[in-house]
């Protein structure tokens, strides 16, 4: 047999290189080993899209400043050909304004801001109470609105309790609430009624920060003032206070986005959580010239989000390799469990499991009918794919109607993989009976769950994204597993009878 020396040399080199790269990153860039030691910063990218009509364009986007909970670190824009100005409006609101003499067709402007999660943030431009103004409403809306306000006033003592009671009142008096909703959204009514009662309030636009999200939109909150102090209220539940990870984007009574000379304008947000040591977070010293600084942080945000997921795949693959080689579990389709685990990350485990079992179970039932139709394989798989898509749509609609928004997440499942899983299971059922289906399906699902647990682990997510060198170590582990000639765990059980009798 060929000498094994080069092999062990390669494995050793990979491990040494991987570990030293990681040590280098740890000591030079002070990136912590544990996710707990991080200073969280959020990079948020706003993408403004619109269709320019051919003339002058002026796009103005409200931008967030330092506010309670967040300190603004830096901001960047990307907008080829556009002039850019950061302006401050009379109400303290900051805006980014892009302008160009002539533009036609689809336009995309980017604004990116880095926010440090900071409980001690001191806002330089605190949110000022809006001026009170009273609208006169026509009947029957005025009466309905006054009824709501009166009830709320009876049960409240301060501006904050009034706001809470008013929101609750909209849920109690559903008839009035529905009537009012015909004229304008509930949130506008709440603000207007608070103003009418002499309480300064406004609707603000906030962003819920969740790691690795793309194409997010702003959500509305109500900001209620008591003198200089303010509190936020959830307009649906009346819950008081700012949830963690809620960033106010526009809080100066201005529009979020104004575009002159364009139409179909919209703004969406991508965000990513970054873990940086405090010093780095404040100084933002990412020297791009250094060769050894192989940091993913230098990539654009969308790609970073993508990589966060991609870099976890080797971990999932390693789990599959270990379970197959060391334990000897059978799975249907070698890496199908990894793909299912990736879907679980999107859907959360319980929803994912239920969704998976529902779709595969129903798929098997329908597929058993297809086998009577006597179709050629490719056509049959295609039929199964279409069927899976239909089921996913059906489940989404049912879940939505029942108010289970979690159920909508079944769309994250890879459909082709599901179709193949159904096809394989169905053949297994026909050939070896339901028992084998349970064994192999259960085995695959168990591997998927274990891969999910590994990939969703906070520490592992932190390490794989921050220490690219660890990929080399993973590679070395996989290579070593490929060279393992010992017994598998399940073989110890299988060959047990051979040792017993003599």
């Amino acid at each position, binding site marked *: 047999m060929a000498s094994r020396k080069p092999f062990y040399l390669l494995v050793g080199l990979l491990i040494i290189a991987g570990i030293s790269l990681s040590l280098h990153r740890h000591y030079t860039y002070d990136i912590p080993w544990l996710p707990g030691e991080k200073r969280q910063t959020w990079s948020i990218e706003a993408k403004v899209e619109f269709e320019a009509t051919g003339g002058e364009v002026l796009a103005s986007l409200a931008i967030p400043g330092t506010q309670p909970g967040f300190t603004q670190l830096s901001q960047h824009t990307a907008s080829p050909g556009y002039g850019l100005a950061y302006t401050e409006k009379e109400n303290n609101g900051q805006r980014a304004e892009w302008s160009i003499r002539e533009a036609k067709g689809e336009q995309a402007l980017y604004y990116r801001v880095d926010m440090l999660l900071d409980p001690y943030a001191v806002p330089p431009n605190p949110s000022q109470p809006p001026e009170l103004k009273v609208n006169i409403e026509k009947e029957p809306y005025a009466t309905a609105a006054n009824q709501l306000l009166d009830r709320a006033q009876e049960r409240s003592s301060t501006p904050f309790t009034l706001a809470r009671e008013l929101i609750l009142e909209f849920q109690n008096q559903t008839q009035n609430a529905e009537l009012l909703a015909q004229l304008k959204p509930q949130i506008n009514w709440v603000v207007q009624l608070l103003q009418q009662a002499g309480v300064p309030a406004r609707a603000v636009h906030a962003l819920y920060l969740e790691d690795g999200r793309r194409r997010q939109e702003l959500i509305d909150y109500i900001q209620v003032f008591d003198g200089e102090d303010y509190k936020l209220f959830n307009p649906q539940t009346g819950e008081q206070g700012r949830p963690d990870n809620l960033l106010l984007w526009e809080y100066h009574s201005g529009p979020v986005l104004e575009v002159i000379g364009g139409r179909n304008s919209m703004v969406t947000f991508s965000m990513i959580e970054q873990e940086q040591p405090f010093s780095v977070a404040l100084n933002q010293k990412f020297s791009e010239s250094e060769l050894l600084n192989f940091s993913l942080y230098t990539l654009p945000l969308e790609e970073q989000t993508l990589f966060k997921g991609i870099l976890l795949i080797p971990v999932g693959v390693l789990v599959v390799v270990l379970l197959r080689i060391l334990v000897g579990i059978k799975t249907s389709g070698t890496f199908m469990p990894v793909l299912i685990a990736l879907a679980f990350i999107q859907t959360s485990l319980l929803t994912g499991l239920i969704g998976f079992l529902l779709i595969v179970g129903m798929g098997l039932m329908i597929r058993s009918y297809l086998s009577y139709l006597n179709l050629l*394989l490719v056509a049959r798989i295609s039929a199964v794919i279409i069927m899976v898509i239909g089921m996913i749509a059906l489940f989404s609609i049912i879940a939505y109607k029942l108010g289970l928004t979690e159920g909508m997440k079944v769309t994250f499942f890879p459909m082709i993989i599901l179709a193949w899983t159904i096809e394989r299971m169905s053949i297994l059922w026909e050939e*070896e009976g339901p028992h084998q289906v349970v064994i192999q399906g259960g085995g695959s699902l168990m591997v998927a769950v274990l891969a999910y647990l590994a990939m969703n682990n906070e520490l592992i997510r932190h390490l794989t994204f921050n220490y690219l060198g660890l990929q080399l170590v993973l590679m070395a582990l996989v290579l070593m597993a490929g060279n393992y*000639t010992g*017994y598998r765990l399940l*073989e110890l059980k299988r*060959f*047990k009878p*051979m*040792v017993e009798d003599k």
Partner: protein
Amino acid sequence: MSGPLLNWFREIRERYVHPSKLAKKGVLGMNRRNISYISRYNPRHLYPLVDDKLQTKQIVLEAGITAPDLLGVIREQHEVKDLAKLIADIPGFCIKPAHGSGGKGIMVITRRDDLGYHKTNGQIASISDLERHVSNILAGLFSLGGRADVAIIESLIEFDDCFTGYTYEGVPDTRVIIFKGFPVMAMMRLSTSDSNGKANLHQGAVGVGLDIGDGSALRAVQFDRPILLHPDTGTNLLSLKVPHWEQLLTLAASCYEMSGLGYLGTDIVLDRQKGPMLLELNARPGLSIQVANGEGLVPRLRQIEALGNKHKMNVQQRVAYSREHFSRKP
């Protein structure tokens, strides 16, 4: 507090065997088989010879080894309708995918009458059932990775009566592991009602370990557990003795020269008229044979490896060597 933990440990000890005990017995594990034997002794480019049963048929014919007759091959979907013509006056036959694995997709028809085609398990199939089966084979339903495949139609083996009572439906076959041309271990696979007439041990077929010296039974297992009587017919399995043993081993051992594969599983059946016949070759033979024999493969494989490559023994000498050294009977 340590009570449940201790119990758990005890349970593990009862269910699992310590690896060192297996190693002492010389049991070959899956990983070791793959790395140390299959990938070392079976050159990759020779795999198609055994994975494609059509190619196997060809080399078998060239080598003059006895095997079931090839009645026909269906390669394209439009040829499926010729199936009826192909099998018009043949009472019993067998349809196989050329690239099937693990016995998947093999349909055995024992006889036909006005009702239709009788399968081994007593079910009756119509001609359109057979055509559907063939088109499934062509579409790659049974082949690894779902590649397009061809269907082979073979004549049925009239298997020897000496095994009546030892098997429930299905064809009893003898699996011999050939290592570098030496027969190292053998077992007989008998189908049961649990295995649905199939001869795969993991599906519930009985495996009977055979003495390499004279082909007599050493031990019988079902679902990896030792048994004495056939679960369906009640015959004492240890009274089994395979006739034409020397001829059978010679046939198996000559597959080494024919295929070039160093670690090879040969499946052999006994035909009433023609004697031992080669049914199939397998480049990745399973490990259950060790359980059936109650003995590990590693010591025997080591012994053969120790002979080196310069022994210049021919087939008869190799068979004689194995019968002398690997027999467990005095």
